[in-house]
């Protein structure tokens, strides 16, 4: 029945396993002192090891370029909001942290919003958000990205519902948030790849 290749006595994958025996302890083992001294030598060697502590406010740990922290709502090169309030991010969000209210662009607002429709209110509840990055993956307009920045802690819950005033990228070209590291060519291609599930046409 069972294939001989999957017997329980397969070779171990690591060399760390030890054979346990219940042999009677020798006198030296029974008085424990050598073992205690050995243990003390080990702890003593740890005194001079490099400490793993990171002194947080002064020293900050380096984050990965694609760390998933606080979100940013991107503007395009001309400083217009990219978001078109399609709601795909809110649908993709497993924690249901995103809410938005869409509004039509009025004539004369073309320098503010790139598409004909924009998000008048765009809120992410940072207490619900699990920083999975699904919103970023779902966004067809490359408007929302997660950044390296951390979400600070607050004492009141409503201070952690971030609106557009916090999320939106500054329009000043010098203060733009660089997301080029996470928006590489591969990522863009992946997003447009029709073989992927997220791009398959669904017939309703």
């Amino acid at each position: 029945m069972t294939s001989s290749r999957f017997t329980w006595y397969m070779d171990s994958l690591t060399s760390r396993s030890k054979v346990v025996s219940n042999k009677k302890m020798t006198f030296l083992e029974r008085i424990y002192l050598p073992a205690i001294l050995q243990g003390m030598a080990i702890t003593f060697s740890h005194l001079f090891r490099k400490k793993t502590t990171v002194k947080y406010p002064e020293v900050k740990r380096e984050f990965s370029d694609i760390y998933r922290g606080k979100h940013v709502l991107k503007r395009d090169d001309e400083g217009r909001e990219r978001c078109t309030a399609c709601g795909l991010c809110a649908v993709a969000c497993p924690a249901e942290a995103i809410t938005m209210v869409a509004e039509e662009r009025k004539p004369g607002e073309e320098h503010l919003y790139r598409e004909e429709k924009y998000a008048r209110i765009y809120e992410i509840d940072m207490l619900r958000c699990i920083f999975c990055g699904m919103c970023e993956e779902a966004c067809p307009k490359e408007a929302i990205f997660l950044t390296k920045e951390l979400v600070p802690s607050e004492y009141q819950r409503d201070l952690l519902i971030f609106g557009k005033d916090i999320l939106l990228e500054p329009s000043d070209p010098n203060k733009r948030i660089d997301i080029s590291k996470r928006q590489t060519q591969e990522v863009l291609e992946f997003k447009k790849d029709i073989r992927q599930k997220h791009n398959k046409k669904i017939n309703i």
Partner: protein
Amino acid sequence: MITFILYKTILASLILIISLVVAMYSTLIERKMAGFFQDRLGPSRAGPWGLLQPLADGIKLFFKEEFMPNTADKFLYILGPSLTMLIALLTSAVIPWGPDIMINGTIYALQVADINIGILYVFAVVSIGVYGIMIGGWASNNKYALLGAVRASSQMISYELAMSLSIIAVVMMSGSLSMKEIVAQQQGINWNIWYQPLGFLIFLICAFAETNRSPFDLPECETELVGGYHTEYSSMKLGFYLFAEYINMFISGAVISTLFFGGYHFPFIDRLGLSQNALAVAGFFVLFLKITFFGFLFMWIRWTLPRFRYDQLMGMGWKKLIPLAILNVLITGVVVLLNR
């Protein structure tokens, strides 16, 4: 006479202050060491290298709510920590802290009380130490506190026997019960540890048990007993219990150094050609170094060994240490008799 009383008062208060300051900073060193042994940094925020941490801890304890259980026996509840603290400080009286000093041609001993039964005094005081914990645990009217107290007292009583027996061998060798006399006989490097290695080992193990330090910290075993005998204590009353442990550590270090490591003696003590007062300072410094080493040893062991199980603790005390100590006394007796 007046100068004598004045001198003793000053000396006693100095020793009191030194033991308190040392205990205060041992809390910091303990936490620092705990950090280092575990590849962490330990407290480092309050002042440079965390030097103000003990102060911060003390202030915190003073400002904590002074809680007392409704059903507690008020008098005993307060007596518990006070007694523990008092006992912890009392032992320092008979320890010779250094060679005699000379002031205006008069020789004064760096020892508060040179009583001829110094060792007996130490044991008498240490055994009263059980009462502080027992009373505290009993008066709290809490089952965890009571269990912790019962554990503490049975542990301390069992280990006191082996401790005294291991010291009897030292007393037999030196032929005196006076701490000063025992130190005086360990001139230079002629320390008792070379003659009594087994006695030292037994005494050291018992010292760990007597001070309720890991691996014998069953009385306050937080995984089983919440906080042990001080479960119901808060504020400075808790502080007294915790503080007394560190004072006990300091005093145990001093007693071990005095009995087995020559007290204030160090190699070539008489060949340096120092004046009497300089010698006293050097001697005190050396004794302090030895105590520091034992303090370090207490912490080192704490972060190396896991806690004993209760039956293992009792089994070791009664079935291993006491027979070993008796054997040690026997062998010492034979050797002393043959050498006479």
